């Protein structure tokens, strides 16, 4: 008697659920970078408002995890702040892989000193993070900041303790501008062996540690510096100007850089005027191989939207827009996807 009622109830619930569910629901799953997560989650939300039947689930597990999950084929798309290496591409079970730059970010040197807007050249910044420049009144810092009053306080370097796309961009830049850095620490990677300093987890961890230690210096994504109201420095670009990171100077880096057809390119230390030198793309990873037709079409439509209407959400959240001609190029490539 009891069982019968329960069974009838269950059947009723299932029937109701079947009737209630939208007929054509499509679910996409993605995983990867944490840096663009605020923008991506805004996109998925807005896109869901336009197309209620489409649900995109994104896990911000980090670039490394994103690449691994995508290569294993466990997600429909990946996301990363550093492009996949040739070895990673060759090792991917999902072939062929396409990189699509979605938006732009910048990494800024943040410091805990009263002086606002300190200026750094690439060599000086490398010297600080190598642990060779130990005090704030070092002549190499003073040379670029003649008007600032710098004390003899010692410098405490703060870096990321976890692997990170932010680190990738930052050390990629340092390796480009400093031979010594390249020799001692090596080329760009999401985690490196740091010659000096303290480690903290996440952008918020580095920002918190820098805030709590007078005389410390670290690096975070631009948005974390502005949100936490921490002083951050201007960087000397390849043209010799000191440029403060903002949406325009970051976009400029993408506009002047030469971008290859697979979009796997570092735009740090890009040539040109008004360019902020520690800028980077953040990429979505998709495959050009046809899989589930319905999912493929949905993903393609979403990418189209993100490249056009979606770009207008970027600036309010602290991300720089893609330059118009780059977006146009990518749209053409998106049409070639299955």
């Amino acid at each position: 008697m009891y069982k019968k009622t329960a069974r009838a109830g269950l059947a009723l619930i299932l029937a109701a659920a079947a009737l209630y569910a939208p007929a054509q629901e499509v679910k996409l799953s993605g995983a990867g970078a944490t840096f663009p997560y605020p923008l991506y989650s805004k996109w998925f939300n807005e896109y869901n408002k336009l197309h209620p039947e489409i649900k995109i689930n994104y896990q911000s597990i980090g670039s490394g995890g994103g690449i691994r999950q995508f290569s294993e084929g466990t997600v429909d798309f990946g996301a990363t702040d550093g492009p996949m290496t040739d070895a990673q591409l060759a090792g991917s079970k999902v072939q062929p892989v396409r990189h699509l730059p979605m938006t732009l970010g910048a990494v800024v040197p943040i410091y805990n000193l009263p002086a606002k807007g300190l200026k750094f050249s690439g060599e000086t910044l490398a010297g600080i993070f190598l642990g060779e420049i130990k005090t704030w009144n070092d002549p190499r810092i003073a040379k670029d900041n003649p008007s600032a009053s710098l004390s003899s306080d010692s410098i405490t370097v703060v870096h990321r303790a976890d692997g990170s796309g932010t680190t990738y961009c930052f050390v990629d830049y340092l390796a480009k501008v400093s031979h010594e850095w390249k020799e001692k620490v090596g080329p760009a990677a999401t985690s490196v062996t740091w010659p000096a300093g303290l480690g903290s987890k996440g952008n918020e961890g580095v920002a918190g540690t820098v805030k709590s230690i007078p005389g410390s210096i670290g690096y975070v994504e631009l948005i974390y510096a502005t949100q936490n109201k921490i002083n951050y420095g201007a960087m000397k670009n390849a043209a010799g100007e000191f440029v403060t990171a903002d949406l325009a100077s970051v976009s400029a880096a993408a506009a002047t850089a030469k971008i290859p057809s697979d979009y796997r390119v570092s735009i740090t230390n890009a040539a040109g005027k008004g360019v902020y030198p520690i800028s980077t793309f953040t990429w979505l990873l998709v495959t050009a191989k046809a899989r589930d037709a319905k999912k493929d079409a949905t993903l393609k439509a979403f990418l189209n939207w993100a490249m056009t209407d979606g770009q207008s959400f970027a600036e309010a959240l602290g991300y720089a827009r893609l330059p118009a001609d780059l977006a146009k190029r990518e749209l053409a490539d998106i049409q070639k996807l299955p």
Partner: protein
Amino acid sequence: LNPFARRFRAGDLLFRGATAICSGSVLLLLLLLTAMLVRGAWPALAAHGWRFALSPDWDPSGEHYGGLTFIYGTLYTSLIALAIALPLGIMTAVYLVEIAPRGLRGPLALAVEMLAAIPSVLFGLWGIFVLVPKLRWLEAEYLGKYFGKLPLFDGPPIGIGFLAAGVLLAIMVLPLIVSVTREVILQVPVAQREAAYALGATRWEVIRLAVLPYGWRGIFGAGMLALARALGETMAVTMVIGNTPQIKASLFAPGYTLASVIANEFSEAPSDLAVASLISLGLILFILSIGVNGLAQLLLRWLGKKYGGGTR
């Protein structure tokens, strides 16, 4: 038998089975956990061999991994914690049982136990915003200034480092030590105290000669429990230790622990070998904690046989 009794017997049997399964599954879980750790760690152990535990390298870009710096940091911070928490905890427990006014004992004991209920991430936040600046001041103005020549107080006063992690851990394990020691002291027979008083002992002498020797095994056990807890503590330590893999004697130097590096690097580990190396560190932590517990049990049993007495 009437139906009610039969039903009751079936329930008895069921209960017996359920409890057996529950306790058996604990053992199974331990075995599975060990198997999983060994399997996950295998690629790193195969690549580096047993030297993995003795190598101080941790170089993600060169793919050289070793655990020594983390083992050192884990042991160092835990020992600092014990060195601070053990005397403090024993004295607190003695005060709570023997010296404090009766009306104060309950509330004070409750306050100490409440300390154990605070989530460790809150300890971490408190560590960053309150403890670290105070330690930095202490390091700069006193320890470094007057004892800076000693290797223990060498280096720039950052505030973040082994000392901060050790002090934070000490506070976190304190409730454990206090409550166990308190229980132990409460078990000391009243007759033993009275006898000591009757012989004309002062209060200090009673505590030193009659109370503490009676409970030393329990106090030793409390220390071991605290050590096991300190070895595995992750969140709070990560926030104040500086996450730098290095072996330095100085209390001021930043370091790294086994639990912290796993928490920090696991999600973004750059390669399969890195993942396996992190799991190897997990295995080492597992062996270390189990080892401390096992060693303590053995030591207690051996000492107990040799000298007898004491509680349980």
